[in-house]
Each structure stands twice: as structure tokens, then as C-alpha cells.
């Protein structure tokens, strides 16, 4: 055994169990857990912030309206317009709700005391992904017809016939089964892994500097503390990026159903 292993003998790295939460208090209903509470809290905060920004918008924006408009214009210019074109305004209500809610839920991962990205529980990304999936299929059939939708999806024109044998099942699988799955899992996995990494480094720092401070382990503890800070910054970026990406994919799916050729 190396000295380092000796030092780390009693240390247990945090595992997936850190995502299991008991009911909030003794005798509470089993569904009333921290993630559930934070999901509701996040929805309330998003609604309140949006209300303070947009409830009574002025031609010359002030305070919160400026912040809100920044978010609104970001989603409109970076997400809605590139994928939806002239339909952008019509889909902004859905996209803005998605983006703001996911972003705040994600940012909960680095907010002290909350420190749980809501989307690290897969149920929440599933809600969004299923919503988008239903809209996508509904719009596709509505705008292209039942046959047209599947034909456009599985048989894009201009390819040699033999290719379709291979392409049609792949396209079907990718569009109707894999896409919604990855849509949800991408967000979930990023939040899950990010939270696990943060938990790991902070556990290392806490364990080797406070729980079992030893001369040999102190260096490890310092590394853990520094990495926790660095990864918190990185996580903030990932949390924003995933909210953006999820909204972007939603806009892409909707745009694809409205205009199959593009």
C-alpha cells in the first residue's frame, strides 16, 4: 500500500446515492423531497423574475426589463430565428419558458445551500423532451401529412435507391426514438455528472482538510478545494450551455416539422 492509499483509507467517494433524497422531514409524504421542492421553487422564481421584467414593459427599458430582454433576445436571435425563421415569434413563448426554467434549474447546481441541479433527476428533462417530442410529431403530421411526414423523414430525395434500405430504418430510429431519448439524457447526464464531479472534489477537500487532516493528505485536500472552485466555474458554463442546447434542439425539431426541407 502506498502512503497515499493509507491516507485515503477511510475516504469514500460520493456515488449516485447523493442523488437520492429522503422526504424533507420526518413524516412528510415520500414525494416531498429536496429536488421536488427546488423544482417548484425554481418555477416560482422564474415566474417572479419574468413578471418583474415583463409584466409592465416600457419602451425605454429599466432594471429587470433590461436583463429580461437580454435573455429574450438571446433566445430569439440565437435559437428561434435561425431555426424557425418567420415562425420565430410564434414559438417564442414555448422556447423562452423552456430556456429560462432549465437555466435556473441548472444554476441551482452551484447556488449555495440549494446545490442540486434539478435536471440531474431524469424525470424533469423527460417532461421537457416528451413535450417537445409530442409537438414535433404533431406538427410534422399536421404540416406534411401522415404519409408525407414519414416519407420526408425516412426517404430524403436524391439518393440511390439501394441507400434507402439502410437509410430509412436509421432515419426512423434516429428521429422517433433516439432523438427524444438523447434530448432528455444529454441534459440529465451533464447535470448528473457535473454534480457528481463537484461533490467528489468538495468531498476530497472537506475530508482531507477538516475530517481527517493529515500532513500527507493536506496537499490532496488543497487540490480538492481548488478543483471545486474551478469546476464550479466550469459547471456554470455547462449549465448555461445545456439550457441553451436543449432549447436549440427543441427549436430545431419544431422547425424541422414545420419545414421538412430545411
Amino acid at each position: 500500500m502506498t502512503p497515499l492509499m493509507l491516507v485515503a483509507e477511510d475516504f469514500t467517494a460520493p456515488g449516485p446515492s447523493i442523488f437520492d433524497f429522503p422526504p424533507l422531514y420526518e413524516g412528510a409524504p415520500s414525494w416531498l423531497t429536496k429536488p421536488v421542492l427546488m423544482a417548484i421553487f425554481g418555477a416560482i422564481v422564474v415566474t417572479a423574475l419574468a413578471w418583474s421584467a415583463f409584466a409592465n414593459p416600457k419602451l425605454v427599458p429599466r432594471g429587470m426589463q433590461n436583463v429580461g430582454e437580454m435573455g429574450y433576445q438571446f433566445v430569439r436571435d440565437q435559437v428561434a430565428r435561425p431555426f424557425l425563421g418567420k415562425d420565430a415569434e410564434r414559438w417564442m413563448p414555448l422556447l423562452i419558458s423552456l430556456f429560462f426554467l432549465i437555466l435556473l434549474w441548472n444554476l441551482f447546481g452551484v447556488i449555495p445551500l440549494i446545490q442540486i441541479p434539478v435536471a440531474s433527476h431524469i424525470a424533469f428533462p423527460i417532461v421537457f423532451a416528451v413535450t417537445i417530442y409530442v409537438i414535433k410529431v404533431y406538427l410534422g403530421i399536421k404540416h406534411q401529412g401522415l404519409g408525407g411526414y414519414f416519407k420526408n423523414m425516412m426517404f430524403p430525395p436524391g439518393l440511390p435507391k439501394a441507400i434507402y434500405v439502410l437509410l430509412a430504418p436509421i432515419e426512423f430510429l434516429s428521429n422517433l426514438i433516439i432523438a427524444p431519448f438523447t434530448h432528455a439524457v444529454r441534459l440529465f447526464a451533464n447535470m448528473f455528472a457535473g454534480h457528481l464531479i463537484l461533490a467528489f472534489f468538495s468531498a476530497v477537500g472537506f475530508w482531507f482538510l477538516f475530517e481527517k487532516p493529515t500532513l500527507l493528505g493536506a496537499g490532496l485536500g488543497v487540490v480538492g478545494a481548488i478543483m471545486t472552485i474551478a469546476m464550479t466555474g466550469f459547471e456554470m458554463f455547462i449549465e448555461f450551455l445545456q439550457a441553451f442546447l436543449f432549447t436549440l434542439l427543441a427549436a430545431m425539431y419544431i422547425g424541422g416539422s414545420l419545414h421538412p426541407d430545411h
Partner: protein
Amino acid sequence: MTLAATLLAAEGENPLIPHAYELVVGSFAFLVVFLVVGKILTPRIQKTLAERTEAIEGGIKKAEDAQAEAQRTLEQYRAQLAEARQEAARLREEAREQGAAIKAELREEAQTEARRIIEAAHAQIEADRQQAITQLRGEIGRLSTELASRIVGESLEDEARQRRIVDRFLEELEGRPETVR
């Protein structure tokens, strides 16, 4: 205890299996956010942004109009200024012409006056000369007669003779060039 063993031991639930209650809460939260943020608030900000675009475009249009108006006014002023300058130049020219005319007229008048005065003076002088000649003639006659009578010693009483003599004498005098003048 290895890490894998720890993980296995700690694993209570599969993180890929969603909790039913979280699906419900998530749907509810999303629905609330969508209804309030999406359906109530987003149209408001969309309306405001559209109005702002309109206001800015309107402002630009207004500014363009104002600029055009200013340009028009400037042109007008320039035209008026040019007109005024032309008018001033015209008036100056007119004044100069008038001045020149007045000057010429005055000079003419003055010359006429001067000529008149000179002529009058000449006439006066001529008259004076004539008068002086006449007077002188009488005086000279009397003086000569008196002188002659004193020299000769006899009185030339005969008036007619006396005058004839004097006249002859004077004619002789006048006959000589450059005498009386």
C-alpha cells in the same frame, strides 16, 4: 473497499428511472411557467419590442423629415440672402449712378452759374469802362480846356468850338494804338 464496490453498495435507485411524482411536479412546474411566462408575459415583451422598433423607425423617419425641412429652410434662406445681396448690389449701383448724375448736374449748374457770373462781371466791367471812358472824356475835355486856356490865356468861351477841339484831340489820342486802355 474499492471504489466500484462503494458505488455498488451505495446504489439505491437507478438514476435513469424517473420517479413518477417528479414527472408530475415537473409537468406542473413547466405548465405554470409556460402559462405565466410564455402565454402572459412573452406577448407583452414582444409587443413592446415591436413598438420600440416602430418607435425607432418612426423616430428615424421624423428625424429625416426634420432634416429635409431644415434643408429646405436653409435653401430658402440662401436664396433670400442671394436675392438680398443682389438687391443691395443693385441699389448700390443705382445710388452710384444717381450720385454721378447729381454730381454731373451740379457741376453743370456750377459751370453755368460761373459763366453767368463771369459774363455779368464782364458786362459790368464793360459798362464801368464805358462809363469811365465817358466820364474821363468829359473830365479830360474840361481839364484840357482849362489847361489850354490857362496856357493860351484866353477863354475859350465858345462851347461848340471848345468841344470840337477836345473831340479832335481825343480822336487823335484814340487813333494812336494802345493809349487809353
